[in-house]
């Protein structure tokens, strides 16, 4: 399998986990009530994406994360985790239900976990800088891919992520 993963196009990032970094374990409540830990998925490839309910980009991307990422790659061992940044549980649950999300959606109410992933972007608050970011964590818990919002490349169909997953998990199932 070809495991050459394209690196992010954002080159001015600091203050976030880099490729190869091990992500420290964290725990967040899911919209369904239970507590979910990143370590629950150790041994699997995990795609984490950071989102909010008020963000138009997030709404545009939402169906594709379910149907073109989660539904396509779950059989290949992928776990998708949505992380709602600074949202309340009820709103996050409504958003997930509206978009038909069937993967776990975690609620980072105070943004403390998300901040650890946020790039330093010209003074933007972390809860803004992290929106629409994708992190792929390998089975060993290290970052194998990350992408931050870049409007020149933003693709609501998330085709760039699919390309990476094809390389990590094998071609499209």
């Amino acid at each position: 399998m070809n495991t050459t993963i394209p690196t992010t196009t954002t080159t001015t990032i600091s203050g976030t986990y880099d490729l190869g970094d091990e992500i420290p374990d964290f725990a967040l409540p899911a919209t369904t009530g239970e507590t979910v830990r990143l370590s629950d998925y150790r041994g699997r490839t995990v795609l984490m994406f950071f989102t909010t309910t008020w963000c138009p980009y997030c709404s545009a991307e939402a169906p594709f994360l379910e149907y073109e990422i989660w539904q396509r790659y779950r059989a290949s061992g992928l776990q998708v985790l949505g992380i709602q940044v600074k949202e309340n549980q009820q709103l996050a649950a409504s958003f997930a239900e509206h978009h038909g999300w069937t993967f776990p959606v975690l609620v980072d109410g105070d943004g403390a976990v998300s901040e650890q992933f946020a790039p330093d972007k010209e003074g933007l608050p972390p809860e803004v800088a992290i929106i629409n970011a994708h992190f792929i964590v390998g089975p060993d818990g290290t970052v194998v891919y990350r992408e931050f919002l870049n409007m020149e490349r933003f693709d609501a169909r998330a085709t760039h992520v699919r390309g990476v997953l094809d390389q990590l998990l094998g071609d499209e199932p």
Partner: protein
Amino acid sequence: VIAAHATTVLPAPATQLEPRDLRADDRGRLVVTLDIPPGVHLQSHAPTEPFLIPTRLHLDPTADVTFGSVEYPTPHTQRFDWTPVQLDVYQGPVEFVVPITLAPTREGRAITITGYLRYQACTDSLCLPPAQHQVEAALNIEPQMIPDATRRGRLDQTD
């Protein structure tokens, strides 16, 4: 290029009372103007997609003024490259108009209408969290003009 922080993307809204010299029991309107910079748009008061934050003008209730329904500007329907759906947005200078009626009073006084404008803005490169700006309009209420007939009737009652 990231444009700016949420609190500095938009200038504070301006307010104007029309007409300027309102008297008690008069009707007029409060006009709130927001000058949205180029490259920035706001979700309209009735977004086309669920969960998007509508622009809303809220005025604090006061015994001195009765507010009518806010007349929101007509949004632009626009399709952006990054979404398959069309969005209704505000761009450029926009006005929010509120009909007002001053309470009857025989004594003039100065009051301040207060409230806030809540919105969610996006630049060409990112979207910013919902924000709100304070809205204030100072108003000197001139004493009510009492028609002679009314005044005479009241004087008769006191005799």
